[in-house]
């Protein structure tokens, strides 16, 4: 398939690309300290290593657009639906009004907790939807649900794989029951993919919890997880509070969830784009739409019909000869 240059100005997007993660923001300088091995790195150095600690492999958080850039060929992608923004249907106030929280999150550069784009990975076109934990904890409200569903529908229509990278604390509390309903909306999105026979590839980044784990992210066709990512419906603290259980340190971690049967592979971020490209190569539908092969072979339809009704041939004495010739009764299809 010929590599097509995507025609899109990413100047504006690049401006947002380096949205630092909340953890990094707490550091006074441009430095980052690895919470696992305590090594210090410059942000730029870290970014070149895809926000993975070069010393110990710890996976830091990645912003939505940064992730898109990491995965897309030449860092080029075409972001979709940036015009969709949060509303305040409940007029919700907890420690502060919901609109204030949204304003503060938007001021950091991202427009919402889900960033969608057309992109190519390894030359293969796809639609990607990436959650941004920096935007209100990656929480899933109406905008996330709407964008997610649109992204699925777009992939289904174009018959290109749908890839999503999650990082979320769950439903966005401040949108109340409407946020809960977005879980259902993501299922609707996946139904569009199912109808079209288009694959869904889920990449679980740290953390993937609550309503996001209890909706689309647990039912992808193929599910990768980043090392050390927490993957759970109820987080360890909630469980410990509820049941007084003492949980192991690696509870709900990607590596455990692989053993538990909920993940297909734990994939290092530095291999992720390559793995996705390879996987899309495997999953790519044959150039010809289904049925054309059938048409091509329809000429032997009568022969086939005859074979269907055909009884077991009385060929036992010739069987051994034919086996040795690789020429079995029933022809290419074997016995009917």
């Amino acid at each position, binding site marked *: 398939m010929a590599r097509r240059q995507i025609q899109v100005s990413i100047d504006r997007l690049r401006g947002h690309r380096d949205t630092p993660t909340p953890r990094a923001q707490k550091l006074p300088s441009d430095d980052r300290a690895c919470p696992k091995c305590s090594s210090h790195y410059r942000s730029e150095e870290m970014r070149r290593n895809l926000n993975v600690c070069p010393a110990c492999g710890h996976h830091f958080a990645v912003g939505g657009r940064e992730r898109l850039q990491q995965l897309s060929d030449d860092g080029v992608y075409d972001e979709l639906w*940036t*015009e*969709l*923004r*949060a*509303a*305040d*249907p*409940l*007029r*919700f*106030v*907890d*420690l502060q009004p919901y609109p204030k929280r949204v*304003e503060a999150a*938007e*001021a950091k550069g991202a*427009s919402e907790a889900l960033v969608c784009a057309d992109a190519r990975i390894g030359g293969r076109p796809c639609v990607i939807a990436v959650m941004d934990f920096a935007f209100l904890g990656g929480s899933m409200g*109406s905008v996330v649900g*709407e964008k997610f*569903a649109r992204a699925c529908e777009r992939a289904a229509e174009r018959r290109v794989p749908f890839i999503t990278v999650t990082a979320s604390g769950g*439903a966005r*509390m401040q*949108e*109340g*029951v*409407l*946020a*809960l*309903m*977005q*879980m*259902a*909306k993501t*299922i*609707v999105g*996946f*139904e569009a993919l199912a109808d079209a026979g288009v694959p869904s590839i889920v990449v679980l980044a740290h953390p993937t919890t*609550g*309503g996001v784990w*209890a*909706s*689309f992210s*647990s*039912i992808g066709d193929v599910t990768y997880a980043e090392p050390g990512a927490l*993957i*759970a*419906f*109820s987080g360890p603290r*909630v*469980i410990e*509070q*509820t*049941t007084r*259980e003492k949980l192991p340190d690696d*509870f*709900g971690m990607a590596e455990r969830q692989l053993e*538990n*049967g*909920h993940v297909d592979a734990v994939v290092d971020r530095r291999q992720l784009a390559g793995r996705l490209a390879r996987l899309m190569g495997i999953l790519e539908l044959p150039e010809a739409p289904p049925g054309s092969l059938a048409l091509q072979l329809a000429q032997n339809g009568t022969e086939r019909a005859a074979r269907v009704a055909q009884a077991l041939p009385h060929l036992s004495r010739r069987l051994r000869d034919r086996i040795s010739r690789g020429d079995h009764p029933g022809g290419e299809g074997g016995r009917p």
Partner: protein
Amino acid sequence: MKPSGIGGRFRRITHRLGGAPDGDAGDIWKAIQLARHAERPYPLDYIQRLMPDFEELHGDRLRGDDHAIVAGIGRYHGQPVVVIGQQKGRDAEERVFRNFAMSGPGGYRKAMRVMALADKLGAPVITLIDTPGAFAGAEAEINGQGGAIATSMQTMMRLNVPTIAVVIGEGSSGGALALGIADRVVMLENSTYSVISPEGAAAILWRDAAKAQLAATAFKPTAANCYRWGVADAVVPEPEGGAHTDHDAAARLLDGYLSRTLRTLEAIPPGERRLQRRERFRRIGAHRELPTGGTAIVVGVDDGQSGRS
């Protein structure tokens, strides 16, 4: 109206949504207390009144039988109907047995197994929702609580038979929504439907479990509000004073809605019904649109009518 840009003021979308949500904290707290009333009818109370011939089915066909969810098939107005409900306990012992209607993955998998039976037989499915949420426990996580909820939603989205979900008490979190994907989602007058239980919300948002009442009212999770938001398709009245005052009357009122609605739904061809169900959930939500031109657009829960202004 004034256009709003990034960081601009939010437009009020209440008109679009059929009125501002009822925000009276006292009224909301009363509904929450009624929804959780200890004498409120539970699924088996309705079932025994609506369908005396009912066969409860047990087990997820995998490794257990989760008592937080009751499921079975009963005779209802001359046809087999599958009922799946979240069952709280009436006394202390039963509450523990039912795990306070907080099911693990096995409960949802039991539900799915019975849904498959409904689809095979062509029997409608009625779910009765009443749970503070899915159970939060290590074993539940290992067994895939997330995937069980997601798959239950997916299964309900695909059912070929008519389906009605009724929130009969408190519907909280994904644990409620797992049984809430239906052609019609309705709420009893004093039921509530929310993204999280009041206690959970208080701990997370206010970082103070004692703020439950404050948290509960902030979500405004009443039937009337859910109706306004398009989350509920109808509100089923309860007897004066609440369903707990008269189980028989509550069952009769629910019966009226269910039997009429099943007739309506059965008139729709299965394929169309499935698409409408999808479309129903595809629509729900509230967001702003911000075109490059800078004009604000409000899209409400239902874009069948003009939402632009």
